[in-house]
């Protein structure tokens, strides 16, 4: 248990970083009503882009921006495959994700992983977030505001604020309508195809940002870092929803719930690891099972526990 408590700040930091990705998943899964599998690829694209550029001496913020741009491009590809080429959204995402595997390796000069030179204090001190800062803050060698929980927490709040504003604008509302009822959206003059592309881009931009932050945090980017990201994202979305759906009605709070969902997910994972409940290789299986169960619950509920219709037929007025 002491292991777990010691590892808690790290788990929360990681959860917060993945939470940004989960917010991206929320946008496609909940708002656009598309299960976008691009994220498994674009998460790594963000990480690889950031590490490679930053290692070459590019300014950190520019490198982060480039990572986001790469994510936007990945979303654009999936979006065009879906809307212009008529490929079902799930398949379009899978195709982009598969293609990105090669693209990601190419970004990393055909290596399976690339590391930041964090042994060099000059490099380390430039970083926004790092696993090392967790320890450094706790032993007092760095100020509290360099703690990853603080830094990523600020990132998350800024992102939530921006999304809250955006989805309240005319354009943002039209994206929500596109996901809620495409036929109605078109009847109201909304270009649903363009909105789907736009939504996929924004989502993957966030996913890539999250990947860039994670590679910064752990000090390297890895071709496998995005594997199963969509499931982690869905897990965070679902955990957030199950716990907070009664409490949080406001859109901004719902996004916050997703972020908290990701944190809880990582705390559970950490707990399982610390208590040595299972071999870490089974974690992905555990995630898959948990998500499958939570996705089934609403379906089973509606099928077997639905309230019987009132006698005398449905009143429609």
């Amino acid at each position, binding site marked *: 248990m002491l292991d777990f408590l010691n590892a808690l700040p790290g788990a929360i930091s990681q959860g917060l970083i993945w939470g940004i990705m989960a917010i991206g998943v929320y946008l496609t899964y909940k708002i656009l009503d598309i299960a976008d599998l691009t994220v498994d690829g674009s998460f790594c694209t963000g990480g690889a882009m950031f590490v490679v550029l930053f290692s070459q001496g590019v300014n950190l913020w520019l490198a982060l921006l480039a990572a986001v741009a790469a994510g936007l491009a990945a979303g654009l590809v999936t979006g065009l495959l879906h809307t212009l080429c008529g490929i079902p959204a799930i398949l379009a995402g899978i195709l982009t994700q598969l293609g990105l595997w090669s693209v990601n390796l190419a970004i990393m000069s055909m290596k399976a992983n690339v590391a930041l030179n964090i042994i060099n204090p000059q490099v380390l001190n430039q970083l926004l977030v790092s696993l090392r800062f967790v320890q450094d803050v706790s032993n007092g060698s760095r100020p509290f505001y360099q703690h990853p929980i603080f830094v990523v927490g600020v990132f998350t709040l800024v992102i939530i604020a921006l999304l809250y504003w955006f989805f309240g604008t005319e354009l943002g509302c039209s994206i929500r309508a596109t996901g809620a009822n495409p*036929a*109605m959206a078109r009847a109201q*003059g909304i270009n649903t195809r363009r909105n789907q592309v736009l939504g996929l881009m924004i989502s993957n931009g966030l996913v890539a940002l999250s990947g860039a932050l994670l590679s910064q945090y752990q000090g390297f980017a890895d071709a496998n870092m995005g594997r199963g990201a969509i499931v982690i994202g869905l897990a965070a979305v679902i955990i957030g929803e199950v716990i907070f759906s009664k409490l949080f009605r406001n859109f901004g709070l719902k996004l916050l719930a997703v972020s908290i969902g990701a944190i809880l997910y990582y705390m559970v994972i950490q707990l399982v690891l610390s208590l040595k409940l299972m071999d870490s290789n089974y974690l992905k299986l555990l995630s898959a099972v948990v998500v499958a169960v939570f996705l089934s619950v609403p379906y089973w509920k509606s099928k077997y526990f639905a309230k019987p219709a009132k006698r005398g037929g449905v009143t429609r007025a």
Partner: protein
Amino acid sequence: MLKLENIYKTFNAGTVNEKTALNGVSLHLQEGDFVTVIGGNGAGKSTLLNAVAGVWPVDEGTITIGGVDVTRLPEHKRAKYIGRVFQDPMMGTAATMQIEENLALAARRGKGRTLRAGITKAERAEYQELLKTLDLGLENRMTSKVGLLSGGQRQALTLLMASLVKPKLLLLDEHTAALDPKTAAKVLSATETIVGRDHLTTLMITHNMRDAIAHGNRLIMMYEGRVALDISGEEKKKLTVEDLLAQFGQATGSDEADDKLLLG
């Protein structure tokens, strides 16, 4: 206001399910015309409305609305000119969005969607007044999700949305068919009010002959993808169900109308 010239549409061409839904339809609507459309199942009524709305491109022919050729325009661009209410109450509104948000979406039909606020304070006040005219108590539930409303309430709201930006053409696709008789009558009277108030050029499909005769200044009956009957003016005012059936039989050599339309 609306001009259809020689419209053809065949679904599943070249397969066993081939179906010619529109077989050379031509139809001209004057500004302010309120045309009711009747016809049996598969006569092409809904197909006609979908062709005008641009749900899919037509095979042949041209469609102009208010002098603008819209034949090649995608659905969302034609929406600038058209207000629509669907048969399925679920279809015309976004269930997961609030009543006021749905209205705000409709208020921007045909306009660019920018990064300005999706709904303003002034709009809220305006919508509240408009909802009062429906007399369904919706003005006190502005921030309720539309999914919580009944079918009739949703149709009334959709009607309001369709006319929020005055459309050049209002398309009503059996918009009362899924409602119970009492609610259907309410929605129909709301339709009359809105169409009359704004002098909207309207195409209304109905499965009910009496409604088709009672409303509008012109009635068309469709049969096998064509306009089989077109009755307007004084003749329409004096029309009875019996006349209509007799005329339909003469025009098509079919007594199909009796069964399908009276029972349907």
